[in-house]
């Protein structure tokens, strides 16, 4: 540790949610005049650490220190008071208010109890000039593009003249010019003695801008060192690398693959001009950082959001399914990531949840056969090892068992293509293993499995091929032999260039 006064620090903090440890004994120290990078994969605990530093959450153990003194009950108000400003990924702007009114929000200059618009204009203009916002201050924020809004958000943080500036992926929606402006600005702020914590998935930015790095992996700190001592490949190594153990079934090549889905120039939501072939008998992984368009790819194929394509063949039929019912009829099934809101009807019995796709196929006014339903549900429960009374509401099940129900309900329809959106998120290890086994068996039985996952080891050890999505395009299609956590993370973060250079 250097002797410079530390402005903001976490000392051995831990935090759990519902008994699930998210941070374990993590320390970080922000010093004036230094840009500190915080790196880690999705779910490594970066956001939780920011929330602890900014007082939005309180640590279960350890302490947050401001100016070297521990603060027992850190709150957002306390953090603001101490000169800590956070630019979150989730913008805090109000579309119907003007740029200036947004920048000053919560800290308006006052005269006779009213907002002093003259003073506000002068100070907001100064903040806007710093980030290169040239738009009139009276422009409603709702009229701005996402990148410009991000700049307003940064100007809003600077308006309060912070001593510590925390930026959570500030460049994810910025253009190249805006990014350049921001990097120059941060360089200047650093020279003025502000402490900056910089979270980004773009390693080249981190390498040029930052001096110090803290790397988180699975909630623990794996590096706290000067950036001079490492390179991009070294950083990637620090972020990944877990022992897969016997979590994954042994991989076997799939028998005689045939085409299940084939699309050319496919666009849906964030995805643009994607060519993709999905084969039967394989598990195709979809990787990449969160929110690069992966979900839109699945939903577009499933007919749940509007999609365009130059040509498409789905299970022999040409053209994309026009809606969910026709997708089901073509043998497609989709299991959403948010099982609480989209995958299941939590307050309804497990058996009803399992029967829902079947209800959609029955003639609308035909009488139901309770006995047949019960038999089928029992069979599914046995097949997937779902324990307990099927008449209980689905919310009584653990996350892992809920996920099994969300999968089970499609099984009676023998779908040829299973589109799975992060099926193991928040699922315990044992159930994960069961799900992996099941997916491999389904593939061996000639199904096509499309597995969107935020869990890199899962992609490496379970999939035959992995498509890595970045900025709405498939940036890399990694074949089995080329699969490694390093390769996936590098492709997801756009770090291939560095690797070549290194």
């Amino acid at each position, binding site marked *: 540790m250097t002797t410079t006064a530390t402005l903001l620090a976490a000392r051995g903090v831990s935090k759990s949610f519902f008994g699930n440890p998210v941070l374990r004994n993590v320390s970080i120290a922000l010093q004036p005049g230094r840009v500190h990078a915080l790196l880690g994969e999705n779910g490594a605990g970066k956001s939780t650490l920011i929330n602890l530093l900014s007082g939005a959450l309180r640590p279960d153990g350890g302490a947050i220190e401001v100016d070297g003194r521990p603060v027992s009950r850190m709150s957002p108000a306390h953090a603001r008071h101490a000169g800590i400003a956070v630019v979150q990924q*989730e913008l805090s702007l109000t579309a119907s208010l003007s740029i200036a009114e947004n920048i000053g929000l919560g*800290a308006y200059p*006052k005269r006779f*109890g009213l907002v002093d618009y003259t003073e506000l204009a002068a100070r907001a203009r100064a903040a806007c000039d710093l980030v290169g916002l040239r738009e009139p201050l009276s422009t409603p924020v709702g009229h701005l593009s996402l990148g410009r809004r991000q700049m307003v958000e940064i100007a809003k943080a600077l308006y309060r003249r912070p001593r510590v500036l925390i930026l959570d992926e500030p460049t994810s929606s910025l253009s190249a010019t805006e990014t350049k402006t921001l990097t120059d600005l941060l360089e200047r702020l650093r020279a003025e003695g502000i402490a900056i914590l910089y979270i980004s998935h773009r390693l080249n930015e981190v390498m040029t801008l930052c001096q110090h790095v803290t790397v988180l992996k699975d909630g623990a700190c794996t590096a706290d060192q000067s950036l001079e001592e490492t390179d991009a490949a070294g950083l990637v190594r620090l972020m990944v690398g877990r022992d897969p153990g016997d979590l994954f079934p042994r991989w076997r090549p799939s028998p005689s693959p045939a085409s299940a889905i084939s699309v050319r120039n496919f666009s849906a939501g964030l995805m643009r001009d994607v060519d993709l072939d999905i084969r039967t008998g394989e598990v195709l992984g979809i990787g990449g950082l969160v929110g690069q368009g992966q979900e839109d790819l699945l939903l577009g194929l499933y007919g749940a959001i509007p999609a365009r394509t130059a040509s498409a063949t789905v299970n022999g039929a040409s053209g994309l399914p026009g809606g969910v019912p026709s997708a089901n009829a073509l043998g497609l099934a989709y299991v959403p990531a948010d099982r609480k809101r989209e995958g299941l009807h939590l307050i309804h019995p497990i058996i009803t949840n399992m029967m829902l796709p079947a209800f959609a196929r029955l003639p609308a006014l035909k009488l139901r056969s309770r006995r047949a339903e019960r038999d089928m549900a029992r069979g599914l429960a046995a097949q997937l090892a779902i324990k307990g009374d099927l008449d209980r509401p689905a919310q009584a099940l653990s996350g892992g068992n809920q996920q099994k129900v969300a999968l089970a309900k499609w099984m009676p329809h023998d779908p040829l293509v299973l589109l799975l959106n992060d099926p193991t998120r928040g699922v315990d290890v044992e159930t994960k293993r069961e799900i992996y086994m099941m997916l491999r068996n389904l593939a061996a039985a000639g199904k096509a499995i499309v597995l969107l996952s935020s869990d890199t080891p899962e992609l490496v050890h379970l999939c035959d091929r992995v498509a890595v999505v970045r900025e709405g395009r498939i940036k890399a299609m990694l074949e089995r032999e080329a699969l490694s956590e390093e390769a996936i993370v590098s492709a997801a973060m756009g770090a291939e260039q560095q690797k070549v250079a290194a």
Partner: protein
Amino acid sequence: MSTVVSSSQAGALYWPVQLRRNVGVRSLFAVVLAFLVAYGVLFPGLLTASGFAKFTQSWFPLALVAMAQAILMLTGGISLAIGALVSLGAVIAATTMIGPLGVAGGTAAVALTGVGIGAATGFIVVKLRLPAIVVTLAGSFIIGGAALLILPRPGGAIPEWLSDLLAGNTPAAFVLLVLVVLLWKLYLATPLGLSLYAAGENPVGAYRSGVPVDGARIAAYAISGLLCTGAGLFVAAQTGSGDPVIGSAFTLNSIAAAVLGGIGFLGGQGTMRGALAGSLLLSLMISVMFFLGFTPVAQYVAQGLIIIGAVAIPQFRKVQQ
């Protein structure tokens, strides 16, 4: 997007901001103006002093309840107790003003009731995190019941001079409305008032920015209550007495006026000038249909169709874009 002010004129910020707020409601203003002209042509009486007085008097209470509803919708809430509060304001005015409290005391009682009930409702909705629609529905029964307890059947009285002043051949209603609008502009120029938009549209972001989100929302409920009982006082002055169910129609009309005026249900969308224009449009529609001899039933049907159309047209435009 055109550049309205260059950065060199940044000192003048307030008026450009105000002008920008007109953008979304320009077409509404045009429609209202067209209706006003048509009304003026059909019934030239509008342009005489007494015609103007009568017209603004019929519009005034609707304008107040539209504002009361719009404030709540801007915070992401809604109220189904508007009509009951209007009734309560009316019966309190009609029972207190001729008694020992007099006009000043009666007005104070009406205002305090409105602010108090509004603030209490707001407290329940905001602090206990209960859905506004349920709380205000229950509130409408309680408040409506209270009005019936105070005055089981129409009665009471308003001093004749006050009725003449407010609802006689004077432009008092219009002057009062201008005053209310100016007070609203003043409130919106305070940090708390301006926070209303942020608290409604992006409460999490507003909280992180240090906005007293709960305070802004409770204050909105209190102001809303005051506007409702104020409207009740005016309605009592119009009729010269109190009626415990006179306000019933105002609940749905206030929502209709706010929706016509472009206030969104999700919070933070729309402007008060829009809500006022919406109430004027609704008031004009009711008057025109009345003069054209529509039966009350036909009026309701037409009103409903027009409101659905008013909400659907911007939606269609959005889908087409």
